[in-house]
């Protein structure tokens, strides 16, 4: 049963649609990696909007759903490589959490490409940019997300 979403006027006026992707990046590794991508001038699309969190273990799955509610077409959670977490064990919990949550989202019918998780370290600026480009292309191919989006 489809619901009539009242999409705000300004979105309709935008012209060609580009995806909005929210990235939860951990402060110590992936945010630093994003920073490095910037200073090294690796280009990546500006539709990845970054939210800095202290650790990927801080990311609550409810935040991911809220991102989809507020209009995100895709969500990325990026953290330190296992073993390198600044808080020692945060990303181990995040790994378990994101695996279970990703399967739950797929079960209810959210396309698997829309929610992704990556390990990106502070020195991997190029990897960050590559992942951002790839994610943007995958989500562009899927189209705008209306599932779990606020009706108004």
């Amino acid at each position, binding site marked *: 049963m489809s619901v009539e979403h009242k999409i705000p006027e300004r979105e309709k006026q935008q012209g060609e649609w580009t995806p909005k992707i929210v990235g939860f990046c951990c402060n110590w590794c992936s945010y630093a990696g994003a920073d490095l991508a910037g200073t090294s001038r690796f280009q990546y699309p500006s539709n990845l909007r970054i939210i800095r969190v202290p650790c990927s273990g801080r990311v609550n*799955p*409810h935040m991911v759903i809220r991102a989809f509610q507020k209009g995100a077409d895709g969500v990325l959670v990026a953290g330190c490589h296992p073993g390198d977490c600044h808080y020692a064990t945060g990303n181990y*919990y995040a790994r378990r959490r994101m695996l*279970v949550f*990703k399967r739950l989202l797929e079960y*209810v019918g959210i396309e698997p490409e829309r929610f992704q*998780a990556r*390990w990106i370290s502070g020195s991997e600026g190029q990897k960050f940019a590559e992942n951002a480009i790839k994610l943007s292309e995958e989500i562009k191919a899927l189209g705008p997300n209306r599932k779990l989006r606020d009706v108004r």
Partner: protein
Amino acid sequence: MMNKMTDKAKEVARELLEKQEVDLVIGWERGTFEDKTAPLFMKKPEDVERLVINEYIVNSLATYMLHYKTHGGKIAIFVKGCDSRGIVRLIQDKQFTREKVYLIGVPCSGMKEVNENDEMVDSPKCDGCTHPNPVIYDVIIGEEVQPKNPENRFKVLEDDLNKVVEERWSSWASEYNKCIRCYACQRICPACNCRECIFVDQSQEWIERRVDETENGTYSLIRAYHIAGRCVECGECERSCPVGLPIMKLNKRIAKDIEDLFGPYEAGVDIEQNSPLGDFKYDDPEEFM
């Protein structure tokens, strides 16, 4: 067998109250009809006469312990297999100590209830039960029984196996359009024991009171996720739902994923075992990283 258990239950409850070992015994009594029971709170030995043990005691009494957290004395509570797992879950979540509760175990051969078409059927929640006998107890009032069909534990997931993404969404969203957000599922669940539930506390605005596809979907997904790894699969949520939502599908899906990813696990069985999402191993699977 049921009559013998009722007599034994009354005997045990009466003795506990007469000797003042506990000041409250929670059990079941006959409800509106012969085939319905309601929770019974016995404080005096005479109250025990109303106690029944039969195939209609489908209510889990575990959740009431949350309302007696600050109660001074010891409380006795009747528990079937699934209820006892709920109690273990509450103890593991540190809601109260093991010493606060005296558990009277009731081996359960499966519950019956009257369905929407006024037919007497086996309770849907009992299909696939893996622990019909209480997993912890201080005294047990009957003989232990064998689980009837434990291989059906994840049967409810079978019809969704081959659905493609769009089918999954349309069937799931259309089901949850029926949700009226009464929060019965959250209130009756022993794993849902936050002092202030984020869905109730409106000041935080995690979720609005509006009822529509998105808000209902968010509520159900997040509640399922919050109890992930802690759900004892008692089925009380689905039984309480006034509009018959398939809530257990989400809970069973998560339980199966946890088993597939992190090894066999059943919540609320071993009081020493940590919940899988509160734990980790260095060599956990890493499928999509």
